[in-house]
């Protein structure tokens, strides 16, 4: 069997993508992409009368998901040679080879009352075979975007061998009002900015919401009691309650452990900020750091054995890693400037961070031993990266400066390519990216 592996290497290291020819369609994501993979996605077949519009919408959204990754390039329908026949008929591979489509996605949409079902097949044009089994998703008319995202996730996943991230949600802080009277409220949306929903009102400051690993709860910092405290919010019911932290003047910067059994956070007493863990079931608190420095922005490793955090114990804010069961912390950031907000990749391989140097802010990544630091963005004020569920994309806050400064959310891939603004009405900051939905 022939193979084609598009090795997508950083331009810095290799000038051209490697093309091998002995296996099925596979796009190997390394650090970026030079040549997006061309694919075709004919408008899905409407299997029931009246489902034409929905079939069109789902097709377009799935195409947009794939194209917006920067890894894929859609071949426009005007270039198609054969009018794609029905979902069940054989694909005319020669016609797709002729226009250099590497992959073809076909689908069909049926509507029965409020119920929608979407069928999907992915074809490897070069080998002339189907890539993976056909899939079928069912849902409601209202949830049509999720079905499109699931189609795109399946195609992305089969072609790259990585998990997808399109059917996921983001919790964030929605901002309004001028800079010196900023109103903040928690909001949730799909990863692409659709289906925005507010979770709190703007009567008190809320900061840095973060999902539980399953995406059913959100931890965040709130000033609603007058002082910074940590709340946990149930996403389905929007009910919220204060987390019983260890006693202190302020508690903030919370994050769930990877098994959701514990909350790690910063607690301030006498002007000194240290890290604590509270076991949710037992209510037992453990103090992790005792230094007179500021320790904050803790983040668990995916296996739950270590944390990355930010500390200014060396004189400036830097990144550290510490075993959770006790033991010495070690500094991992050694470049010029100040480092903050370390977030462990869900794949476990990288730490994303905010870096401040020479009057600029950057979002960057480094290996967990601090090597191979790579800055992905640069602007007057970027901060607060959060990982896509597959560890391939980072969302972060970019704030424009000056009196009219506003915050917006952006994404970049881990190669530093494909910078995109997330379309959100109004100001938005402090994104927390949730897991892939079941």
């Amino acid at each position, binding site marked *: 069997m022939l193979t084609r592996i598009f090795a997508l290497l950083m331009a810095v290291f290799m000038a051209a993508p490697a093309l091998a020819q002995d296996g099925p369609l596979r796009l190997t994501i390394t650090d970026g992409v030079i040549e997006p993979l061309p694919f075709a996605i004919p408008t899905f077949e409407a299997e029931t009368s009246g489902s034409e519009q929905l079939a069109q919408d789902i097709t377009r959204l799935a195409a947009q998901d794939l194209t917006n990754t920067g890894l894929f390039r859609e071949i426009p329908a005007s270039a198609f040679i054969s009018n794609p026949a029905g979902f069940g008929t054989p694909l005319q591979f020669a016609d797709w080879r002729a226009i250099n489509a590497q992959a073809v996605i076909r689908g069909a949409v049926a509507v029965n009352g409020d119920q929608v079902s979407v069928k999907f097949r992915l074809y490897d044009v070069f080998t002339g075979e189907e890539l993976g089994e056909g899939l079928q998703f069912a849902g409601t008319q209202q949830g049509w975007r999720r079905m499109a995202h699931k189609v795109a996730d399946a195609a992305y996943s089969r072609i790259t061998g990585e998990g997808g991230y399109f059917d996921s949600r983001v919790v964030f802080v929605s901002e309004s009002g001028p800079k010196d009277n900023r109103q903040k409220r928690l909001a949730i949306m799909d990863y692409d900015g659709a289906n925005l929903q507010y979770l709190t009102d703007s009567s008190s400051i809320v900061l840095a919401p973060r999902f539980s690993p399953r995406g059913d709860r959100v931890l965040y910092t709130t000033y609603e009691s*007058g002082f910074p405290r940590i709340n946990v919010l149930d996403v389905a019911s929007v009910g919220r309650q204060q987390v019983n932290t260890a006693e202190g003047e302020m508690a903030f910067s919370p994050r769930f452990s990877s098994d959701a059994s514990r909350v790690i956070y910063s607690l301030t007493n006498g002007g000194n900020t240290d890290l604590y863990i509270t076991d949710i079931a037992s209510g037992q608190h453990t103090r992790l750091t005792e230094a007179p420095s500021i320790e904050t922005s803790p983040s668990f490793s995916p296996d739950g054995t270590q944390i990355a955090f930010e500390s200014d114990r060396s004189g400036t804010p830097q990144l550290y890693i510490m075993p959770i069961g006790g033991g010495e912390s070690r500094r991992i950031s050694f470049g010029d400037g100040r480092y903050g907000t370390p977030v462990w990749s869900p794949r476990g391989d990288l730490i994303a961070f905010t870096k401040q140097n020479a009057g600029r802010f950057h979002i960057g990544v480094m290996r967990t031993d601090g090597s191979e630091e790579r800055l992905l963005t640069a602007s007057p004020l970027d901060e607060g990266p959060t990982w896509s569920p597959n560890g391939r994309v980072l969302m972060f806050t970019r704030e424009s400066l000056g009196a009219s400064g506003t915050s917006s959310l952006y994404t970049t891939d881990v190669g530093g390519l494909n910078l995109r603004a997330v379309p959100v009405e109004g100001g938005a900051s402090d994104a927390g990216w949730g897991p892939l939905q079941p």
Partner: protein
Amino acid sequence: MTFTTKALVVLLALATTACTRPDRFGGADGADGMAGANAGAAANAGAQGAAGDPSSPQYFSQTIGDRVLFSVDSIALTPEGRSTLDGQAQWLQTNSDYLAIIEGHADEVGTREYNIGLGSRRANAVREYLVSRGVPTSRLRTISYGKERPIEVCSDESCYSRNRRAVTVISVGSMS
């Protein structure tokens, strides 16, 4: 320092100077910090006396000075800051019915969570100085707003230098 719940409620509800503080937003800011009684604060303003009355919170904020400023990344008190805090300490000792909440703030150059820690350090530096000048620690409480509450909105040092501040906010209350 421990406040009873009751004392805290009193403290929050009777923050009568909330409406006079330039760094405190208008009525929309209700649930943040002590400003829950903005409307009441306005009504009470007359009863609290004018800035000419040396025992009034207005006198404290306007004549003595309610804030001290800090250098970049610093929590060191300047000579000018110490002088202001000497005046604050004297006023608090003379007007012993009042409590104070010290708010620490940072400029926008820094990450959100680190700046909360930094603001807390600044508030604590002021608290320690006031205590060293004889103000009972039980009458002082600290909070940090990090970079969430700038009073100046430009993005250069002329604004940053005024945003890096600790503001002593006078509240009516008792430690019953």
